[in-house]
């Protein structure tokens, strides 16, 4: 390790970003945002530089008598560091261009800092510490916007508070069984904590039925805040999922498959652009989990696919949030049916949207095509429940999710940028919004064309490059698969436009039941606990009052019972007691 690398490993990147977060508040807006972008760019640069021989457990120390690693550098945390640092830089520029108040950027940066802390944690104790902080900082980021975001923020906090507690329980169980917090000492989390860890992390991943915070929260805060929120919490959760279950499991893969379909389907029914994108987060996380879940069944290739998809998703998902954010910022509208024909007046935004949509739908030439192809290839090797075309259930689920993704992005683009005549004529994106978007869009195209660079950043590079695997995304089969998905998407959208519109009015997600249920359950339990406790309290107070009366009026009690005696021992009785005690003691000792 060279001196420069050693120096880099001594700087915890989250501290740099946290300091920047404070400076943003203190300094003038432009300077503060500039420093924020520099701090996140430092995270990016540090991760890139450390990729060359900087791996290892740095800043290992003891906390409360436990071994902890505060800066754990390995291929997985590095790739997260690269993409989080890069995207956060773009997002800070975008926030500056979107008139984000200082508080938004500051809270977003502290949220990024906790994310980076989670990523670079080398043990479960450090991880859960930053994990809980992430929940707090992201909630604050939502609340900052006020209005409808406050109630949604409460629900968000409830979900993540629960998730954090469950994960904390998992970590405790893990420690009780394994005797250590260190990642390096065990393979994933101890089996005894499997269910707790799956649920705790699963809430942040947006598992089906645990996902309703996602579309509930992300459409509500400032558009710039949404860009930050959309990529860090869920993607960090996927990363932590890998830390907990490095060997994957078919349950995870199938859960991922169903998430892809579920998320894409509900996305299709949305008219709020950010809500639509939020459902796609769930769908895309499904692809990642499918890849990670196949770690044992298929091998490192599937894990790499999952992580590559994670990496790409951070880029294009935030890009899409930035693009619709510009539209919302310029028009003030949050319903795509009220927009339309904007491609003429917002050409830059339209172009960026197309890049993002092409990436997420896996059009050849864009980064999503590479990674989604890897996941689909992996799923194709699983032959449980074989359906048509020699494809197993998992593969078909992922393909179906892919079709749904095409349909919903055709829908989004159609409604926002075409769909009738242009009644609005807003300005295009501001300069800094454009800068942020171009950074992300450029990365999407770059990694789609020069996919070798993407593989280079991933773990297991050697295996992917080796002859047995020899991954070639631009093979004929991949291209036909993609074309088929594209055609199915177009046909599906325009054929099903009306039925989907009808469904959108009638089909509600689980939150329609979940939120009222939780509300009334909470209300009734509060009432029950309060009333129950009040009853206990009354009984106790009555008992105490009775005991107090007896204690204060022992003679009166005896008199009421008809006993008329002096209870205080006089001289004679005292001597009697003494003699009796002596006698009893003697007997006990001599005969006992």
């Amino acid at each position, binding site marked *: 390790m060279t001196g420069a690398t050693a120096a880099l490993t001594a700087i915890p990147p989250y501290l740099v970003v946290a300091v920047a977060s404070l400076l943003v508040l203190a300094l003038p807006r432009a300077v503060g945002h500039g420093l924020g972008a520099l701090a996140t760019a430092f995270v990016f640069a540090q991760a890139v530089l450390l990729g060359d021989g900087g791996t290892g457990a740095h800043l290992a120390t003891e906390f409360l008598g436990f071994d902890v690693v505060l800066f754990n550098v390995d291929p997985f945390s590095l790739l997260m560091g690269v993409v989080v640092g890069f995207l956060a830089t773009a997002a800070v520029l975008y926030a500056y261009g979107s008139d984000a108040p200082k508080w938004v950027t500051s809270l977003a940066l502290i949220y990024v800092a906790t994310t980076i802390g989670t990523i670079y944690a080398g043990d479960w104790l450090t991880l859960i510490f930053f994990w809980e902080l992430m929940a707090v900082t992201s909630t604050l980021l939502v609340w900052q916007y006020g209005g409808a975001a406050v109630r949604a923020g409460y629900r968000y906090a409830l979900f993540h508070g629960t998730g954090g507690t469950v994960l904390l329980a998992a970590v405790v169980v893990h420690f009780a069984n394994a005797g250590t917090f260190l990642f390096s000492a065990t393979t994933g989390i101890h089996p005894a904590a499997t269910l707790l860890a799956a649920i705790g992390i699963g809430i942040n991943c947006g598992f089906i039925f645990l996902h309703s915070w996602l579309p509930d929260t992300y459409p509500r805060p400032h558009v710039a805040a949404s860009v930050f929120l959309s990529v860090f919490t869920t993607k960090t959760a996927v990363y932590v999922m890998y830390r907990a279950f490095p060997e994957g499991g078919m349950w995870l893969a199938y859960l991922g498959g169903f998430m892809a379909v579920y998320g894409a389907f509900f996305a299709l029914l949305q008219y709020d652009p950010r809500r639509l994108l939020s459902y796609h987060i769930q769908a895309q996380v499904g692809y990642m989990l499918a890849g990670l879940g196949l770690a044992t069944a298929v091998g490192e290739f599937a894990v790499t696919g999952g992580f590559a998809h994670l990496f790409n998703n951070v880029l294009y998902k935030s890009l899409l949030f930035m693009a619709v954010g510009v539209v919302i910022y310029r028009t003030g509208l949050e319903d795509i049916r009220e927009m339309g024909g904007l491609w003429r007046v917002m050409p830059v935004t339209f172009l960026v949207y197309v890049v993002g949509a092409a990436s997420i739908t896996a059009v050849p030439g864009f980064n999503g095509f590479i990674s989604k192809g890897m996941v689909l290839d992996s799923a194709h090797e699983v032959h449980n429940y074989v359906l048509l075309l020699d494809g197993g259930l998992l593969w078909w689920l992922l393909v179906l999710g892919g079709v749904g993704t095409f349909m919903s992005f055709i829908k989004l683009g159609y409604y926002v940028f075409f769909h009738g005549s242009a009644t609005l004529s807003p300005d295009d994106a501001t300069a800094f919004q454009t800068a942020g978007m171009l950074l992300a869009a450029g990365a999407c195209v770059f990694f789609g064309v020069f996919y070798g660079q993407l593989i280079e950043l991933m773990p297991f590079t050697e295996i992917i490059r080796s002859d047995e695997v020899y991954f070639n995304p631009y093979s004929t089969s991949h291209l036909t698969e993609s074309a088929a998905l594209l055609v199915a998407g177009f046909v599906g959208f325009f054929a099903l436009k009306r039925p989907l519109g009808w469904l959108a009015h009638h089909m509600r997600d689980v939150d329609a039941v979940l939120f009222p249920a939780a509300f009334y359950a909470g209300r009734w339990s509060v009432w029950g606990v309060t009333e129950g406790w009040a009853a206990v309290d009354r009984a106790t107070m009555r008992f105490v009052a009775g005991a107090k009366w007896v*204690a*204060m009026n*022992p003679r009166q009690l005896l008199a009421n019972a008809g006993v008329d005696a002096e209870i*205080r*021992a*006089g*001289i004679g*009785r*005292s*001597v009697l*007691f*003494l*003699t009796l*005690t*002596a006698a009893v*003691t*003697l007997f*006990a*000792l*001599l005969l*006992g």
Partner: protein
Amino acid sequence: MTDVLLPLSIAVPIVAATLPLALGLRYDDVGWPVAAVTTLGVVGSAAAVALEVYTAGPFDHELGGFAPPIGIELVADELSAAVFLLVALVSAATLVLSRAIGPRGNAFHSAYLLLTGGLVGVALTGDLFNLFVFLEIVGLTTYALIAADRSGASAYASLKYLVVGTVGASLYLVGVGYVFLATGTLNMADVSTQIVEQASYTDPLIRAGYAFIVVGFALKIALFPVHSWQPDAYQRAPDAVTTLVAALVSTVSAYALIRVSYSVFTVDFLAANDAITTGILVVSGVSILAGSALAVMQSDLKRMFAYSSVAQFGMIAAAVGIADETALLGGVVHLVGHGLMKFGLFCGLALLAAGYGARRVEDLASLARDAPFAAGALAVLGLSLVGIPPSVGFLGKWYIALGAVRSAGATGGVVGIGLAAVILASTLFTLAYVARVIEQLYFAGVDREAAAHGVTAPGDRGGPGDGTDRDAGSAVADGGDGGNAGDGVDAAVPGTVPTAPLVVLVVAALVTVGLGFAGAGFETLLDPYLSEVFA
């Protein structure tokens, strides 16, 4: 040379006890200076002895040059030095209190000096019969002191203690007689070897001897159910006497119990006789619970803390019965700490009684406003008695409970766990009665305006519907004619607290808290004694 201090510390107070009476024929008020000078000498001697013991180790003195086991021996070791120091300091502090609030006569100071000499004698003697003599000196002077204010109630309390205490002392003497029959010696160290050589730990004579001795001590310590002399004695005695008696008399008896149990009969005797340790533990447990419960029931402040002593000495006796090194350490710490805390508590009550006529719980209402330092010190000492850290009260209870749990873990017995549970329960009871005192001091509102108004125009608040402020209001109304501080009409109640004893009280409270940090110090200082006993 230091060993000469031992006989001097006993003889000088006893001889000086004649001076107030003798000089009193010619001078008035000569008692206090004589007592003060003598007590200061005892404090100095105690400090020198403690310094010697804790730096150079235990030492002894043969009285009159007669070698033990025939001659009488005075011994200063780690345990007796601690008690000696406590006796000297508390005696001196009490003198400050009695100077301010009485009693002040020459007779009182003679008895006081005799008592001090007796207490020091109990702490230092190394001879079983000599121990009886000193216990009797302590007992007789205590009987006299309790009756010092010449009221009927205190005369009865004194008589009760006299009769019961004499029977108890006789039981001890019978026990010593049995042991003498079995071993032919009275020197403590010699007895402990002769028990093994001439008898055995299961010899009926030895067992019966120990049984009589324990019952005799139980009475002197005032364990339930032979405690009945103690609440009357504490309640009826003059306040300064209560302070001295509550802090020291039962304390030296409990010290004697520890000394006789561990230095004379030894821990092997206890191990060989399960019945007696179980008996001690049962009696202590009952004592802890009954004392605490009875304390909660009291409304008279002195009586309340008298019953509290029954419970606290139950814990010390339990520490003896557990026969565990940690528990015994806790017992000794609690012995010293309890002496200090009870001195402080009774001193504070005496000051509030002298300053504001407060004798019952309800009389304390809002006194924290008038007497912030005395009330604050009382609150601190009370919480320390509950066992809230950091305080010496916590340390003692903690070690005892820890020893109980540990011995239960070692033997698998339920007794240890049960005892720990009893200690916890008594902590709650203690909290209950201390909380009553603190609540009255700080939170019971007294409407001074209405009270003052009421004195000038009684008709205004004659109706039962006009309860100015619950019980507290009516209590003040009752006290209005007797001694309400707010009136300023009653000359008998000055409405302030004398300064010198207040300083002593605050120092006692601070020391109580400060000793709470001295757990390691106690362990180091007492370790030689404990490791010798448990060798």
